């Protein structure tokens, strides 16, 4: 496709007199009335303060519009038809975006115009938005065993990057230690975001298990360390089992322990707060958001209810408060004066439009799942990944998992002994309508021909068998 030629026409100011359905006052008679009322001859008069030299000469060179709703739908759906969606395949991709079942009620609620088109009204205008986000935070608080949870920030990456900057403001120190099993993209984000104020030091891991190397941690931590950060489960899918020891070492040096936790794991895994994490953060996409080509991400940050921590959040925090009528719940912004809305560059980082609708949706998801649902889904994910690893490991030349640790829902698979590259295997899987794991060869060259596979509750035993059968065919 090119954007010249028939696709375009010069759209000089037309005298066609189109009445645009979204622009009621484009009706010429109404326009005239309004101009007359304000004493202007034409709309052009309203731009009289814009100097000629800054004005666009002629009109923009844009594609011909699709004026009717039908034409527009047909055009856009025509383009979208070139996509092949994950449910048309068997999808074993994860790496931060997960294909879970999205309950119908989640979509029903987040597509309601009242939520979809609300924005920044006062609690008197938008009581429902405040209550829904307070309840989201409250349910996350139960999942995380933490008392403070923010109105969502953009995504898990932002949540981690902000958490690390919070620790530097809290401690007055400028170095963070990060478990080197972190994904390259998240590390890229952290490096950019922390650049002005923070030095990043990576902490090694045991190559057999993927667990953080505590000796390396001990050797690198000092009284300059603001934070120790690790993910649980890690980017490579394994469960870090020595959280208590890591947080102890961290606290012994007066640093803050930051853990990124997958909320989907917390029905079965110990919440990081219980092994000493001070700030817990991550992404809530798994909790009721469609994948949306990466558009379902939203970030959470959680801490204990300590003033020093609360005052370092850049995000909005919604709190519950009484009203003038006994028994009526009211809501509002907690400690608003810390935000950039209140005090511009003196505020903590910045606050703005982020991902509130996904917070509301995650609240709906947690309310539907309840305690039992979160336990069952956690168990189900671990069972499936365990089964998938056992079956894949039986295939000649395939090793799964590479790292000898308990895994949650993702695991690294080594195809090094098959004589085929990950790219070749994924290409062959795609022909069989299967999306294989994320290719790690560029990101983790030390692992060789490895890929990160992911299962979810959408996979039946037969689905996993179909994957292993296909892999057998491909590597034989």
């Amino acid at each position, binding site marked *: 496709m090119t954007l010249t030629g028939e696709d375009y026409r010069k759209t000089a100011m037309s005298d066609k007199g189109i009445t*645009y359905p979204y622009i009621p006052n484009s009706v010429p008679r109404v326009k005239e009335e309004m101009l007359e009322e304000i004493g202007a001859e034409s709309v052009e008069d309203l731009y009289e303060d814009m100097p000629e030299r800054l004005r666009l000469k002629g009109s923009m060179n844009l594609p011909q519009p699709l004026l009717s709703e039908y034409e527009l739908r047909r055009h856009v759906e025509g383009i979208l038809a070139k996509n092949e969606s994950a449910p048309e395949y068997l999808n074993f991709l994860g790496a931060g975006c997960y294909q879970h079942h999205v309950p119908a009620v989640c979509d029903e609620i987040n597509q309601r115009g009242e939520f979809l088109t609300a924005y920044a009204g006062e609690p008197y205008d938008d009581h429902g938005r405040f209550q829904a986000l307070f309840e989201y935070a409250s349910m996350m608080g139960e999942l995380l065993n933490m008392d403070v949870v923010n109105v969502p920030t953009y995504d898990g990456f932002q949540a981690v990057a902000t958490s690390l900057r919070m620790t530097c403001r809290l401690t007055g120190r400028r170095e963070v230690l990060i478990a080197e099993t972190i994904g390259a993209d998240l590390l890229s984000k952290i490096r950019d975001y922390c650049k002005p104020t923070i030095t990043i030091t990576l902490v090694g891991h045991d190559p057999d298990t993927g667990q953080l190397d505590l000796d390396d941690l001990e050797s690198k931590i000092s009284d300059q360390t603001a934070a120790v950060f690790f993910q649980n489960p890690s980017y490579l899918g394994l469960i870090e089992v020595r959280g208590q020891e890591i947080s102890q070492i961290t606290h012994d040096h007066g640093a803050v322990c930051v853990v990124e936790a997958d909320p989907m794991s917390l029905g079965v895994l110990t919440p990081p707060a219980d092994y000493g994490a001070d700030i817990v953060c991550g992404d809530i996409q798994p909790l009721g958001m469609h994948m949306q080509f990466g*558009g379902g991400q939203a970030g959470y940050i959680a801490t204990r209810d300590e003033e020093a921590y609360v005052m370092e959040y850049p995000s909005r925090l919604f709190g519950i408060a009484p009203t003038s009528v006994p028994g009526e719940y009211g809501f509002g912004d907690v400690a608003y004066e810390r935000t950039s809305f209140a005090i511009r560059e003196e505020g903590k980082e910045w606050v703005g439009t982020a991902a509130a609708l996904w917070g509301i949706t995650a609240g709906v998801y947690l309310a539907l799942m309840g305690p039992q649902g979160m336990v069952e889904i956690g168990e189900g994910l671990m069972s499936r990944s365990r089964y998938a690893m056992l079956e894949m490991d039986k295939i000649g030349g395939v090793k799964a998992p590479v790292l000898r640790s308990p895994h949650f829902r993702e695991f690294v698979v080594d195809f090094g002994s098959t004589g085929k590259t990950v790219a070749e295997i994924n290409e062959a899987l795609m022909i069989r309508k299967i999306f294989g794991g994320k290719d790690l060869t560029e990101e983790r060259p030390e692992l060789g021909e490895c890929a990160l596979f992911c299962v979810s509750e959408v996979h039946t035993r037969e689905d996993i068998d179909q994957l292993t059968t296909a892999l057998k065919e491909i590597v034989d």
Partner: protein
Amino acid sequence: MEDIARHRYTDGKPNLRRFHQAKWDEPIIFELSCEGQRGILVPEFEGETQTEADAEDVLATLPDEMRRKEPPKLPELSQPQVLRHYVRLSQENLGADLNVEIGQGTCTMKYSPKINDQLATHPDVVDLHPLQQEETVQGILEIMYRFEQILKEISGMDRFSLQPAAGSAAIYTNASIIRAYHESRGEAGQRDEMITTIYSHPSNAACAQTAGFKVITLYPDEDGYPDLDALKAAVSERTAGLMITNPEDTGIFNPEIDDFVQVVHDAGGLCAYDQANANGVLGITRARDAGFDLCHFNLHKTFSSPHGCGGPGAGACGVREDLAKFLPVPLVAFDGEAYHLDYDRPHSIGKMVPFYGYPPVVLRAYAWAMSLGAEGLREVAEIAVLNNNYLLNKMLKIPGLSAPYAEGKRRVEQVRYSWEELVEETDVRSEELGIRAADFGIHYWTSHHPFIVPEPCTLEPTETPSKDDLDEYVAVISHVAQEARTNPEVVRTAPHNSTVHKIDHDPLDDPSRWAMTWRAYRRKVGQERD
């Protein structure tokens, strides 16, 4: 037979709406919990027994301290109870679908077309994993590529990233690109000052600060225009750049904006145009033509994607050709046959988000722009400006209200008004007037802090209200202002017709009483569970 309609008009004009906001007095969701209820069931992992993969055996692979001892204390509700609770909460909002949404100035609260919501929730959008092979996502990549071409034409810029997660994230991204540019020239340490104006969005200052710059804020001249002399005095060999809005949040267009850019260029800095306020200038004036090096648009403002209670939105950063190498990775590229995600950009500032931003928001923005074309986009701008000046003319007839600065000049797409005179007369504050307006189904926001314009409110009608909508809005505000004189108590004690009554904000600033979660609240009121 009596004509009911006759009672709805006075002197030929509609009476004020007898509004009451939905009030369900809905409990907190934990209060609705009933032990044992289930809202949804989870698919089991069925099939022939595979002992090692059974749940109990799998959990047994975990060390005891990593195994959660008690299920999380989430509420237990059946599905209809969850649905009803949230539908009720949804009704207790004044979204743009419901009210004449003029009062959230700077935010461009226009109509979000429903067709675009339908397209954005199409399975070929929502069910795409971001790491699928490129040949399976050609459609969404094409949408992103096509929309980039549209933004290039609207702004005159050479390359766009659609990755920033929202407007402020885009401002931050531009600040980070400016930092990378000076680093590439070996001037990063020296050029550590970012200049902005007090009537540019607070995020210009806050994001620059976050990116490591010292912020210099310029104040306007007496007429409300950004002060060119102040800028000349502020620039130096330490200047990294200028981050500025135009029109500013006052709705005043700076006719010397190209001179501002020149002064900063002469000092060796870059200029980033915050185009959150672009709605009145689409097809009228362009960022690149004023000399800007970078700009950004808010796709949830100007480009109609709904605001979603505060996101997800999307920011789009545009730059001139020689800065394109710094844009976040990946960019969407087209080789004449297929679309690709281009990661091979060694000078890039890196990843801003986990994947590519919010593609469904980009899709909505693309569909909106395609429904209008060049002529329609210009009509958007012109009617937004017409509506604003029509509103201004009517609003200024309300005694006690003024529009400080640039007297007699037209405003672009919004106006920052002042109730200073009314407040002096009645002692009723702007914030209180806004809350009283909620009793008539109308939302109104004061302004960003600090309040340089005293007792402010910022109104931005956009192109989507009708003339009657604008008249209704003015009638309500006029009525409320009149009440401030005749019955100030009714304004001060407002709202009366809202979901809730006056909120006591003191606990929200008191660490011993604030509560951001239900568990914290129960603990603080002495009702700790278990």
